[in-house]
């Protein structure tokens, strides 16, 4: 049997359709309600409570912790203040992305790194000769994402943290109704939101406190399907969907560098050494061959393709996660890896890998759409990510 997360006692009875999927060896709700719309709209209009416990979490401590992390991450960890959080990838020697996650600086010599895949061995292998310990606290730490415009109000009403002054990508140690937690102003939705980290044995009381206190603010438990739509709108990549981790790729062409995933901003080549630096420097000099961009599918074109069959455009009910060819001038120039109808933007959007010469903003391309068992092409336009970037995310 797959395990439930520390919140399972509470989430299981809510899962009306028994609609579970697996996430890192845990059961994770796809959606709680039979129709998942309300869960999505909670993210954008009120607050969604999302169980993100299956994330891998590593506690990294020691006088060399900063040095160590600077060796493995592409970001400059020396610039990470105590109580700051940084997002970024880590790469293999050839500069291809192994995984991506957030780094919380809990203290001068103490960090928590999240990862989508197990990375303990890789981290340990790179810690040779450094005074640092790496502890896997995936199972002992539970995590909830509270995401949406009312999330700050909810936490203010329940905790002693100074939330008005907790800036984007900062963290605070606090209590939520007496339960010690770490609150980070982070998330995977591109909205105002927080992630709350708690000892696993306090998970259920924390859930109860949030549901209880959040009720007046429209708190709604939300599953992965809602989250998946929000993260596409926010232009955030998903491992195993938008890229293949370098250490799992069977062939070279399946690997991606940070530049090829739109993460060039995270690569601090000015650092004197980190894993993959030389390869990334070379790539940066030559210019990457791929870009990772947004596609906005042209509504009129979509309508035209469907009208050939006497149909109005049929839109995806949830985020699709397959590889879909993208063309320019009849030639394939890339592939989209995630796409959905954005209920907020009222646009059909997709995340796509595009050859650099077709990745400029505004480039006209075509994306394959299958209508009535036939492959058609709909016009699309290359846009910068994110698709949706509300003021409140940082304010």
């Amino acid at each position, binding site marked *: 049997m*797959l395990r439930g997360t520390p919140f399972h006692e509470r989430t299981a009875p809510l899962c009306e359709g028994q609609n579970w999927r*697996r996430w*890192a060896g845990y059961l994770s709700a796809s959606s709680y309600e039979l129709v998942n719309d309300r869960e999505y709209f909670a993210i954008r209009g009120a607050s969604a409570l999302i169980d993100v416990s299956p994330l891998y979490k590593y506690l990294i401590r020691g006088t060399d912790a900063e040095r160590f992390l600077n060796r493995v991450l592409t970001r400059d960890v020396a610039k990470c203040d105590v109580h700051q959080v940084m997002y970024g990838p880590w790469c293999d020697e050839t500069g291809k992305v192994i995984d991506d996650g957030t780094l919380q600086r809990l203290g001068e010599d103490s960090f928590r790194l999240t990862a989508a895949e*197990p990375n303990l*061995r*890789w981290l*340990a292998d790179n810690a040779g000769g450094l005074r640092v310990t790496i502890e*896997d606290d995936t199972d002992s730490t539970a995590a909830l994402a509270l995401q949406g415009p009312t999330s700050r109000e909810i936490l203010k009403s329940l905790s002693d943290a100074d939330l008005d002054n907790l800036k984007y990508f900062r963290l605070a140690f606090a209590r939520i109704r007496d339960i010690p937690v770490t609150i980070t102003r982070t998330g995977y939705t591109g909205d105002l939101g927080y992630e709350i980290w708690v000892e696993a044995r306090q998970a259920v009381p924390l859930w109860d406190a949030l549901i209880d206190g959040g009720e007046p603010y429209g708190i709604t438990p939300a599953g992965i399907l809602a989250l998946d739509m929000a993260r596409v709108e926010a232009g955030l990549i998903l491992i195993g969907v938008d890229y293949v981790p370098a*250490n799992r790729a*069977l062939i070279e062409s399946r690997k991606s560098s940070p530049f090829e995933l739109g993460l060039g901003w995270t690569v601090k080549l000015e650092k004197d050494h980190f894993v993959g630096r030389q390869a990334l420097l070379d790539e940066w000099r030559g210019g990457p061959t791929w870009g990772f961009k947004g596609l906005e599918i042209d509504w009129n074109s979509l309508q035209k393709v469907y009208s050939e069959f006497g149909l109005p455009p049929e839109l995806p009910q949830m985020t699709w996660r397959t590889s879909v060819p993208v063309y320019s001038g009849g030639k394939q120039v890339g592939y989209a890896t995630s796409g959905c109808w954005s209920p907020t933007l009222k646009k059909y959007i997709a995340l796509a890998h595009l050859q650099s010469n077709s990745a400029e903003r505004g480039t006209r391309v075509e994306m394959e759409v299958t209508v009535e068992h036939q492959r058609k092409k709909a016009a699309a336009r290359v846009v910068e990510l994110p698709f949706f970037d509300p003021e409140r995310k940082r304010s």
Partner: protein
Amino acid sequence: MGQNTRYDAVIIGGGHNGLITAAYLARAGKRAVVLERRHLVGGSAVTEEIFPGFKFSALSYVVSLLRPDVIRDLQLARHGLELLPLESTITPLPNGDYLMRGADHDETRRELYRHSPKDAEAYDDFGKLMYHLAFAMKHILDVVPPNPTSMRPRDLMGLLRFGRHFLDLPPEQFYALCKLMTMSAADFLDEWFETEPLKATMSASGIIGTFLGVRSPGTAYVLLHHYMGEIDGVFRAWGFAKGGTGAVSEAIASAARELGAEIRTEASVEQVIVKNGKAVGVALESGEEIHGRVVVTGVDPKLTFLKLVEPQHLPSDFLDAIRRFKIRGSSGKVNLALGELPNLTCLPGKGPHLRGAISISPSLDYMERAYDDAKYGNFSRHPYMDIIIPSMIDPGMAPPGKHVMSIFCQWAPFELNGGWNDEQREAFGDAVVNTISEFAPNLKNAIIHRHVVTPWDMQETYGLTQGNIFHGELSLHQLFFMRPTHPWANYRTPLKNLYQCGSGTHPGGGITGASGRLAALEILKDW
């Protein structure tokens, strides 16, 4: 058939390879006859109802690498072949714990993590490396070994193709392959893992059918074969045959007959008849002579060249090489009819773990100690064992509610101190049952019938010289273009019109059918 019947091909031995050769030859329109010494076909791949109501895969018990080509060409599915998955391997430990590896990646990872967080991740990295290497090596299973010292275009091309596969490997894979070829299974696994039962259980595939221990150099290479099976796993070339292993042979025999081959049982060949320097037929023990344009031997190289062919027909250096060919038997088989399922102390009850393999291999030291006994002429007091319960996978193997247990064990040397006899056979059976009972105390009382096969029995009953399960050890110097000996690795022999199709040829032992198929294709080339 009368005295002077003449066939196109006379095949000695109705093992699965002999049957496959006959089927392919018949498919090409040749008149083929298979002569089998026993009352049933299959050789090492047989299902026998040794005790009423209980069907035993008497020797070989899982199908490893049955070539997908053979399954398709001979339409084995239509002839009744059904391969069922074997899902997991559990290694019970003396301290009451266990290590379980199953079909689900997440579950296996979590279980490995329980023993060693690092090993849980190393396992995936290791799997990926082996996948790459197996992918590069796998094609050699399906080709005739080229002769590396020949200048014939066919050999040169073959060699080139063969070499390119290696030179194309990225450096880290190339060096890993070099290590695999030279290191011991234990040393190689030590570089990757720290969990003893994991290393010990994985190392076992390196020593099966050899007279070597897990710390003997050269045993690492055979680990790869396991992963080749995984790549072929999508074809279900790996698993348990419904009806027991004999069902594989029956399906092949049925295909062969339909294609027009003749199969005769209780037809023991005594000698290959040679006229004018060519094989022209065989003489049976009964005195009957059966003639054919070619003779194909599906029995092991020692039996063929040292017993069935008179020495004056073969070059002496060839005979020397065959004499040196290593064929030391080292395995035993114990088949049990059970009134109830074994109850593992580490994981009690009838769980899904009983549908998979149970491996008695708690540590590398345990494995090496088991080998130590054999080095000095004794069977292992505490042997390595690979156990399955076929009736859990196919209920038809035993009466309702009852079970059969198949126990493969090492080491049981053919050359036992004092020699094998009834008393030693039972003592060996006791060592096996006693050892398993340490992990499943109810076993002894559950036994209704016990069938013990020693290497001596494998020779006497099943026609395997020295009881070697693979017709010759699978060690590097006896593989590929050196199997059974250079330059006769292309299924031909120094005696004109005599061909070989058994496991003593490339790619070697196991229920692969590769030897049988490749031999037939070579014979047809010469036709």
